[in-house]
């Protein structure tokens, strides 16, 4: 047993270690040490809790050891075996677990208020009821919302927006009902209201996420990240635990900032993403007029010839590269080009892929050095001095219409200026429009050559042609 004051200080230390863990991510060089500090912080928090509450009987100890062992084994197994292309769904899955854990902890507190020190004058303290109900509502919402995001990302559910009639009205009604229920629960402190709050929040999580389409997932996953933080903070207030409050605030603001960065990169407001369905609004389909213009088509040999004779090539990866698992072939192609004295760089749009930083992880997995990979703002001016831009699996983020065509749904979105390069090689399976349902102006430019085929196969053919 240690004193409550010492415990509070140790929780503060854990909180600070978590801050340092995030701080470490400012550069890949310091990030691993940061992650270690995070682990130490977590160990301190767990040991402190055990030292303070000191489980009194052997059954409790058995349960604690078993719980950590079961969870730890599952977690370690997942961490070891997940493919890097599956990272978005893993993160969504983890978010759902945080949400469900928050619900369970709140429920545990409800049924054992004295153990949590929130019992006063024959009932649970009113502040605690408020914190608890907010924690459980956000936790339950995060749980089902993340499950839907997980299903969409892993392909268990169609990535297309599912639009229910009068869904906005349903959301608003449920939201109002939820607030009313929280008030009722706080006043009466009857457990039945707690469970009704949980059910409504679970339903709201499903209904709010199903209208949102696949390519908006970077925003959704960041938003759910943020909510999992606020849920943790809510529980932190109930427990009066500094480590949990600090962490909740950190994670909450992290997710919020990531959502903001993603929205800015799509030139969309947060509200419009949450309300659902890019291109699902009526009328925006008008741009899909019959296409009569022709495109220039090439083969792998042509692409290899062009790139071999270039002095600088920029590779622009997108979600299609992840789907085709083409990252290793891309790196082989870059290696072959570098052997020929060609300078190779990578340009990454913030919303390329299905989660923030998705492309960077895939390239890192394929052993692409991180100092060859550049963000939109850092590389956009270089396309003009580039001979070949190799676009693989990206579409809307390269559409020059976003800069010129005011009627386009993606007008105003920051895009990569690939059309400034001498030649644009565009790897694509067919002529289908991108996620936003807009035709890409780039295809019809004189300096664009379309390479029709699977991203991985096409790149492998180019590697072969470069070698031959």
């Amino acid at each position: 047993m240690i004193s409550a004051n010492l415990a509070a200080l140790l929780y503060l230390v854990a909180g600070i270690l978590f801050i340092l863990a995030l701080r470490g991510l400012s550069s890949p060089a310091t990030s691993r040490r940061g992650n270690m500090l995070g682990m130490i912080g977590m160990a301190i928090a767990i040991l402190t809790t055990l030292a303070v509450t000191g489980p009194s009987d052997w059954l409790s100890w058995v349960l604690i050891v078993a719980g950590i062992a079961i969870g730890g084994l599952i977690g370690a197994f997942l961490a070891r075996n997940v493919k890097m292309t599956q990272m978005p769904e893993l993160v969504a899955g983890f978010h759902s677990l945080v949400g469900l854990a928050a619900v369970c902890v709140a429920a545990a507190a409800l049924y054992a208020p004295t153990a949590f020190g929130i019992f006063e004058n024959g009932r649970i303290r009113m502040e605690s009821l408020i914190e608890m109900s907010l924690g459980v509502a956000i936790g339950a919402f995060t749980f089902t919302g993340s499950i839907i995001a997980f299903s969409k990302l892993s392909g268990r559910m169609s990535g297309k927006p599912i639009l229910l009639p009068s869904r906005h009205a349903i959301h608003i009604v449920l939201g109002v009902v939820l607030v009313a229920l929280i008030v009722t629960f706080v006043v009466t402190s009857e457990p039945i209201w707690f469970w009704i709050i949980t059910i409504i929040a679970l339903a709201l999580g499903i209904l709010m996420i199903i209208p949102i389409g696949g390519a908006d997932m970077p925003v959704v996953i960041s938003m759910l990240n943020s909510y999992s933080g606020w849920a943790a903070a809510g529980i932190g207030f109930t427990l009066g635990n500094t480590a949990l409050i600090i962490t909740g605030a950190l994670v909450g603001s992290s997710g919020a900032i990531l959502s903001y960065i993603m929205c800015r990169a799509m030139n969309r407001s947060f509200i419009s993403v949450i309300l659902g369905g890019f291109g699902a609004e009526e009328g925006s389909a008008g741009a899909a007029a019959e296409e009569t213009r022709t495109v220039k088509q090439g083969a792998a040999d042509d692409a290899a010839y062009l790139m071999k004779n270039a002095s600088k090539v920029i590779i622009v990866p997108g979600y299609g590269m992840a789907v085709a698992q083409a990252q290793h072939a891309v790196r082989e192609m870059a290696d072959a080009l570098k052997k020929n004295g060609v300078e190779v760089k990578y340009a990454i749009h913030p919303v390329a892929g299905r989660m923030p930083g998705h492309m960077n992880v895939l390239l890192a997995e394929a052993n692409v050095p991180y100092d060859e990979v550049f963000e939109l703002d850092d590389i956009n001016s270089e396309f003009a001095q580039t001979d070949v831009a190799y676009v693989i699996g990206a579409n809307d983020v390269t559409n020059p219409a976003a800069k010129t065509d005011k009627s386009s749904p993606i007008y105003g979105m920051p895009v990569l200026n690939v059309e400034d390069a001498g030649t644009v090689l565009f790897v694509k399976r067919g002529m289908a429009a991108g996620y936003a349902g807009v035709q890409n102006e780039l295809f019809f430019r004189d300096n664009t050559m379309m390479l029709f085929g699977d991203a991985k196969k096409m790149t492998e053919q180019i590697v072969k042609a470069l070698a031959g």
Partner: protein
Amino acid sequence: MIDPFVFQLSIFVLAIFVGYFVIWSVTPALHTPLMSVTNAISSVIVVGALLAVGAHLAADASIASKIFGFFALVLASVNIFGGFLVTQRMLGMYKKKG
């Protein structure tokens, strides 16, 4: 006497500001590890689970709270181990030229 809630709220608000500045300094290349590590650290909610599981059954806990606590403990442990280890695995892949 100032209510302890006010102290907690102060810590919360200050931590949001710390978070704001720290997160903006994270390089965009590491945004995916950022999400997985925030996942891991938000599982510090495990302290609540430990409290519930460890509470004495006869004195101040019910069967229900023990069960919920145990369930939360397993979920949070999946996240703690999974989150930190997968972050470590990803960060291990980021290499410099040469």
